[in-house]
């Protein structure tokens, strides 16, 4: 998250480079994947699993 904040600072500048844009998008994607791993271990995800089981029963 800290890294993404730093990159956001760079990408807001007018003289940003294509490397800044790539870093921003890849760091954002990396963050999404990390959040997904964490979410999979959470109680909230167990609630989603139960909801999906119910949904697919009907």
């Amino acid at each position, binding site marked *: 998250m800290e890294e993404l904040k730093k990159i956001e600072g760079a990408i807001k500048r007018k003289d940003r480079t294509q490397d800044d844009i790539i870093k921003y*998008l890849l760091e954002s994607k990396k963050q999404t994947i990390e959040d997904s791993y964490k*979410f999979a271990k959470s109680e909230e*995800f167990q609630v989603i699993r139960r909801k999906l089981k119910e949904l697919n029963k009907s």
Partner: protein
Amino acid sequence: MSYNFIFEGGINNSYFFETKEGIIYQITFKPTPYLFGDGKTKFSDFIFEFSVLIEFNPFDKLPKSDFKIGQTSAKIFNDFYIKKGNSITIYICDSSDNKQLIRKRKFDIWFSKYNDIRFFKIDKTLIDTNKKRFPISLILLDSNPYRNEIMDSFTSIIGQNNQDK
């Protein structure tokens, strides 16, 4: 036929569905407001990064090919645009395992198969200083009121920088 899905929302506008094999996918549309600069353009708040994530896989190996996943993803895409019609979706593939071109090809197949002509896609390639290539797609409704400005902004951030490579 597609799989049933649920919309959970949250910061990343999350959707979930479960395949017949018990694999659970999460599809997200994450706000990405700074792609075109400092986040003050008319359409900055409508830019979202699209991701397809495996949230639960009961097997040790990667899931087998399943045409329903593409169909379900397309339905979710449509549902998101019903909720937020002026959205601009960015798709950049995860490149951490160097499989970004395979992912991009699969995404392109889904798009051409399930697009009902309402959507408009622009494909470009970002190139970093090490000459590594990153395919990127931008998708919006053809009826988006900022369509031309968005296309110009997208083309200029890619084109201008690639001229230096």
